[in-house]
């Protein structure tokens, strides 16, 4: 799935997702989206789907 990505990006993504407080579905979707974008196969629809997977905290929006 992450064939199109390079190690530094994968590591950065992992670190950021660890602190992002989202569920594993979001983590997976974002990783796939970035990998597809690097492979030239992502479009706005995929971003829209990912936005639907974002879980916002009721109080501060994060």
């Amino acid at each position: 799935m992450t064939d199109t990505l390079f190690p530094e990006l994968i590591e950065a993504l992992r670190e950021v997702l660890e602190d992002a407080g989202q569920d594993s579905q979001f983590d997976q979707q974002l990783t796939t989206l970035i990998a597809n974008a690097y492979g030239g196969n992502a479009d706005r629809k995929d971003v829209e789907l990912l936005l639907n997977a974002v879980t916002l905290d009721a109080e501060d929006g994060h």
Partner: protein
Amino acid sequence: MDIKIKAWKAEGLRGAMQDFQIDLSDPLRPIALIQMPTGTGKTTTMTLLRKAFSGDPFSRDEVEELRAEIGPEEGLFELELGLDQTNCKIKITFDFVDLSARYNTVLTPGGNRQGHALPRPYDRLLDKNLARLFVFDGELAAELRDRHLTSADEAIDSLYRLSVLSGLKADADTVLETQRKQNKHITGQQSNTVQRRKDALIEAEDRLQELVEERRVTSLSEASLAEELNTLQATINDLAEKNSKIDDAYEVAKGDVATAAARLDAAHAQVSSYFPRPQALHPAIGVRLAHCYDQIEAAKLPGPSSKVWFDWLSKQPECVCGRPLTDQRHRETILENKDQYLGDEQHGLVNQIKGALKQGAVATAMATETIEALDEATSEHQHAKQQLRAAQDRRIKAAGGNIDTLRSQEKKIENDLNDAQKILATLDASDGGSWKDSIPLCQKEVDSRKEALNEASDTFKTYQKVKFLQAILDEVAAKTVEKVRTTIQDRTNEKLAGVIHAERLTIDRIDRALQLSGSSRVRGEVSVGQSLAVAYAFLTSLFEHASYRLPFIVDSPAGPIDVETRKSVSKLLPQMFPQLIMFVQSGEREGFVEAFYERNDVQYLTCWREPSGIRTECGREAFEAFHSDDDAKPKGDAT
């Protein structure tokens, strides 16, 4: 992704490019050494290759430049590539009547396409900036080290395609904008509010752009002034050092500055030793931290149990209350709820914080003498520097130098530098002042106006999600750049150690440009050859672990490099690129070209001009025998 050049040809173009073709399709010989004397179109070929890869449009002037003095109304440049299993011909047809150029792409399989239409993902990869890296532009070698430019960072951005992440951010904005437009249930009054808030947002966004641009320009000017000041001060120092017999007070003053600097360092170290005990710096900090300890105590943190304890409990035959744990569901409930408690590490950390806060309450206050010693050392250092400056001036004056002019230049640069730093401080200020003057405050204003707009247009939730996603993408990009910079810097330094033997040359950091170690490097004192070697070490490090394989095309790869370094470069380049195309001159044979004679994967091409056009001959014999009159002899390592 594997990209290879198979051939190129030119027809009906200026000079030697009237009718010219090169075939590089032999897969067993990925290295091509092409000997083309000056005037046979090397520079034009390099430019056309860059354009063909990136699809960059031609200006009328650029087309005019390619027009033959007497020739047809049309010209052609065709680049044939292997894009993994796809054969791709990029054709550029020049119309010399209306001075235009149009691209055409032929894919096999895939057919004819109008324009520069590479298949995905190659179309996303091959842009103007990347083309400049692998169809290597000699000027880039100097730009990579120029701190006024951002070429090194741009090279990393291009090759690691961080623009992909910006593209996703832009897509998220488009999703939001689309949703905003689709919200049809808002009333007329709401619609007016939406328009008003939209205008307000545009005003803040425009101002933000202006401030960012002002910061960019001022930051470049600051770097340039700082360098100018360094150079001028180095000149003054050199002048003073030159006239060593004139004034002994200069040497004494130099010693005094060194002693004062050492005392200042010691005083700083003494003050810094209090930093891990902030309570000692000021009583108010102690009071706040004691309050923090009380709060932690009141919250009963870190709690009596850690989640490890619940793990243990779930495996026991009975609970601590004595009831048997026979039902599997009870064990599962214990495990499910264990996450409400801190883990061992967090438990330990909170206890450590508590311990430190408790101990801190009795920390000894920093002695007044420590601060006084720092003040005194600072004044003494200032005074010693003034004395040294006066001694320098006396020496230079006594030797007939015009120190007054130099000092007045220095003062002017210092004032300008000071002004630039003040502007930057205002632009970067995160509190106080108006949002119209500071980037962080203006960004806050933009965010707040965006929120207001999204509330009015009923897209607030989507806006928050977009903002969240964009923040994540920004963070990923920033962390990636940092990691890539470190990796590239380490790899480049490893290569430099193997390439340049005469002198230890290392990159201290990559920040916009490559910053080399050593004070002389700050003043740009590296030779043209060293500069080129640094560029090769950097670029090969960049390409080495990229997820795609690109050819490397270079004109005069070893021209200005000394013979010893040439040998290392001749070994480095073929290891790093799957295809290597080098335009060489006979002057580059010693140390460089001759190193390739030992290999059996090299194609030799020799081109020369004849009245009928350019003649090309393949093979090593013709290559070795050829010596053009305009070829330079091996150059020394010019600075």
